[in-house]
């Protein structure tokens, strides 16, 4: 149990590192993940992303991947590197049903609703 937690943590750290694609000009967006009773809600702040056609989303039962094109490149950091995309790979806090996924993009913020896979079923007491 303890080892599995360590591997999960390594995986999470590597995922976070890989989403800082400095060579590829990618920024990691600010993300908020809400683990509700029956769904996972992910919101992502995407400044300079203008329309939904600029956003690519892929989902599995355990992950959500985002790639979004900024309409204007921004120079960032000590080396003044230019960034023109947001990219993020998110490990979800629960298994979800990918076919249930819905996404909205308003005021530069993306909201993704992911219904959880039911892992518990009620038992009728006779």
């Amino acid at each position: 149990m303890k080892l599995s937690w360590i591997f999960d943590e390594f995986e999470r750290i590597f995922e976070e590192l890989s989403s800082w694609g400095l060579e590829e000009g990618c920024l990691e967006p600010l993300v908020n993940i809400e683990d509700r009773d029956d769904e996972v809600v992910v919101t992502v702040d995407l400044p300079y992303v203008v329309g939904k056609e600029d956003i690519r989303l892929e989902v599995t039962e355990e992950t959500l991947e985002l790639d979004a094109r900024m309409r204007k490149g921004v120079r960032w950091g000590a080396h003044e590197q230019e960034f023109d995309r947001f990219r993020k790979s998110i490990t979800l806090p629960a298994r979800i049903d990918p076919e249930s996924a819905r996404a909205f993009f308003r005021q530069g913020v993306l909201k993704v609703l992911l219904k959880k896979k039911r892992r518990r079923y009620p038992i009728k007491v006779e």
Partner: protein
Amino acid sequence: MEGVRIVELKPVETGLKYVVEGLPDTGLVGAIAVSYLVGKLNLEEVAYIESEALPPVVPVHKGLVNEPFRIYGGDDLLVVLSEIALPLTSLHQLSKALVDWYQRKSVGLVITITGMPVGNRLEIEKPKVFGVATDEETLKLIKGSGISVFKEGYLAGPYALTMRECSRRGLRSLAIISQSFLNYPDPGAAASSLEALSRLTGIRIDTTPLLEKSDEIRVKARDLMRQAQASMKRMGKPLEKEMPLMYG
């Protein structure tokens, strides 16, 4: 105040009308608002706050090292801003030292700007602003300026401590609280707050350029937002969604 020193770079007058505080907090509403205010009103740096409780971080602008926690001044106005998130352990000391200084400077009214997280922020085109005061006279000023009163609830974060400290010392204070995102920089909420500040003080502030630069601000403020998120988790922010037991 032990451990905290306010270092004046230029003589700061006493008897100024207003101090406006905007520290990194919910949606960075206060931080964005006061940062814009400093630029828009061409205020000059008059003091900085020194404390060992602050993290060992200094901002660099155009190749020059800056103080992270600064005070700007202009006609009848002081503005307090921080470019770093304040650690929870430093907040009590810092707010006491700042309010102590405001009192020594005989400031007329202490105004703090902050955000109030709302779940449906995405659906809100123009965030609404609420006000809360430390005394009846200031509450009348809020109502008279057409700002809705934040009637019941909790305040949490740096501005809550500033207000409590002002209240204890009989120093007039109010908070401008705008609906906002919790974890994302919110220039729209900052613009609403500045419009409220304008109504309260009569200081003219055109917020159009702030809204036009919204994307740029959101990108630039990402790192400060990340720092503030870590601090907010520890300062009881979830309490702001709850109701206290006693009703007036």
